């Protein structure tokens, strides 16, 4: 027991003095979580939270066209638009994101079912986020549809008024209150950017132990400390456990820090708050399984590589590929179906799915056995391989 404690203490001391390693393991993922939680906020939101900057040129100059504008979010009020050219100039400058051009004859076309000519044009700036543009276009389409419905139903409304019968407002006719949108969340939370980014970058950071772990290990091989320890009859199992336990503690530290960032720091910047009313046993189980898989992978790399350059290159590139493929860098839900299936090739995806199951689907231990089995399986294989490769040290 004493040799193991000595190895663990040495490892923790060495890590605590490696500033660059600490930055990579703790600061890098926290920064990624902050940036990506803000960047992906609208990708995960049901409503567009950002206000669209837009201008309108109304060539119709009718009560209908004026009413259309009032039914949309307010445009850039201080700008006087003298024609469509002004709108296009504003778009070119980047001053607005959308120009709404209402042609002459808009009011007449509302009652003309035969007309197929477009009388309202949504002119968008090319760099505008597609989700934002789609939401604005849907708002315009909804307003036009309701105006046309009112126009077509005008004779019926007149008869109803003559008979003193009630006539619904446009909002009542649209029946938007009849449809509710909810996520089936079980005991979990809505999948927001922060619920996606915290586990994603946490898994990525946990796998990044490959850099410090393999570097230290290969330096020990090259400098002769490992052979020296072996000559002192320190069992390989003790040496491996002396790596696994400290880096497991580091991974748990990363988990705690990233949860705190998601819970308290991201909301300060205007992002969503990480929902943490989870099964903590399940959360610990996923974190442990990801940690063991990451450490096993790092030891396998360290056992194969001959130089620190080889280890950091192979480990770093493999991590980036795992991250890109596993839905860390690009969320799985925005991937095409074939790519979503391919995420299963990445161990990071197994960990991420386990975390998402806990955070979003409110899964308990029984609900995450699949990801746990995969992660622990790869951890076991890697550790056995590393032990076998290092047996002759």
């Amino acid at each position, binding site marked *: 027991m004493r040799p193991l404690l*000595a190895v663990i203490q040495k490892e923790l001391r060495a890590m605590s003095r*490696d500033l660059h390693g600490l930055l990579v393991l703790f600061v890098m993922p926290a920064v990624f979580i902050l940036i990506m939680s803000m960047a992906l906020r609208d990708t995960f939101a049901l409503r567009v939270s950002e206000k669209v900057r837009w201008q309108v040129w109304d060539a119709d100059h009718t009560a209908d066209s004026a009413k259309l504008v009032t039914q949309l979010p307010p445009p850039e009020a201080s700008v006087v638009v003298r024609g469509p050219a002004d709108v296009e100039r504003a778009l070119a400058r980047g001053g607005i994101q959308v120009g709404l051009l209402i042609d002459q004859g808009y009011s007449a076309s509302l009652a003309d079912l035969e007309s197929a000519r477009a009388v309202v044009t949504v002119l968008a700036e090319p760099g505008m986020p597609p989700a934002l543009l789609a939401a604005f276009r849907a708002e315009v389409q909804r307003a036009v549809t309701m105006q046309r419905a009112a126009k077509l139903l005008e004779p019926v409304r007149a008869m109803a008024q003559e008979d003193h019968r009630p006539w619904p407002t446009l909002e009542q006719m649209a029946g938007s209150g009849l449809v509710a949108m909810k996520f089936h969340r079980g005991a979990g939370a809505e999948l927001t950017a922060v619920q996606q980014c915290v586990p994603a970058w946490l898994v990525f950071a946990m796998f990044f132990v490959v850099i410090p772990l393999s570097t230290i290990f290969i330096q020990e091989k090259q400098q*002769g400390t490992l052979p020296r320890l072996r000559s002192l009859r320190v069992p390989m199992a003790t040496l491996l456990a002396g790596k696994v336990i400290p880096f497991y503690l580091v991974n748990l530290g990363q988990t705690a820090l990233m949860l705190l960032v998601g819970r308290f720091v991201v909301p300060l910047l205007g992002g969503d708050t990480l929902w943490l009313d989870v099964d903590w046993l399940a959360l610990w189980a996923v974190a442990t399984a990801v940690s063991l898989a990451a450490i096993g992978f790092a030891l396998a790399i360290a056992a194969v590589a001959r130089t620190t350059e080889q280890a950091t290159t192979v480990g770093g590139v493999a991590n980036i590929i795992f991250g890109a493929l596993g839905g860390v860098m690009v969320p799985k839900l925005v991937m095409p179906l074939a790519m979503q299936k391919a995420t299963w090739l990445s161990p990071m995806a197994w960990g991420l799915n386990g975390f998402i199951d806990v955070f979003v689907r409110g899964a308990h231990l029984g609900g995450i056995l699949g990801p746990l089995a995969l992660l622990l399986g790869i951890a076991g294989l890697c550790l056995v391989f590393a032990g076998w490769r290092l047996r002759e040290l």
Partner: protein
Amino acid sequence: MLKLHDLRFRYTAADPWAVDEVSFELRRGEVLGLLGPNGAGKTTLMALISGLRRPQQGEIRRAPEVAARGGFALVPQDHAFYPMLTCRENLEFFAGVLGLGGSTRRERVDAAIAVAGLGAVARQRASQCSGGLKRRLNLAIGLVGDPQLLLLDEPTVGVDPQSRAFLLETVRNLRTRGKTVVYTSHYMEEVQAVSDRVAIMDHGRLLCCGALDAVLAESNPRLLVRPAGPLAGPVRAALIAGWGLEPGGGDGGWLSFAVPAGRPVEAVLAELRNQGVSVIRFVYGNNNLEDVFLKLTHRSLRD
């Protein structure tokens, strides 16, 4: 204390034997100097003795006090410690992996620091120590377990003369404390300075092994002569043919003669005078290990 019998080892089946039929016995309290050029097989032999490699043939017998945990220590050529830890932390770590704890560990660490003269830098990170201090720390780590057998693999490589002298003195002190030491080096003067017995290796084979005086006596005494001027060609040829002048000799103005046993040195000097060679200095005396090595391998130790 340690007995090696017909040890053979090679790294792959395609390689030549790195250690080839090596046998010797190590007695308690002696310093064995293991001498050989780079690539002779010294480090591999140390790895076999320390159990890092298993011999493919032969056997190693260790006395119980050596076979016990911490009974021997290998001090490798490399700086085999942790540069980001302090000297004391390194020693505490290695004491810890040997299972030492509490006051025993403190005492052993303090003792190792004292023996290696590291008191002034004990709390300094190892990476910030000079080359000589790193060598001392390397040695101190070997001493922290208080081993009976110490395997020192080229312990003075790359150190300044003061540190070298300190390390050699430390080895001599270890012998007086009853420790057994295997000291490998390709510096003959070091091996000659600290060893009771000497083993010479080349190409994996043990060429000789014995008491230092006995090994030195195995080669002929040498006469070094400094003539007043260069030798004429016919004179040189005559001295090579008849008087043991080594061909190619004359480096730094000195001529080297291997004087055969039974031939008086005065006769060689008289012949030089007869040949018209004016001698301004000469040295005659015991051989050194370089001569022995040259005789055994027909090449210089530093080739």
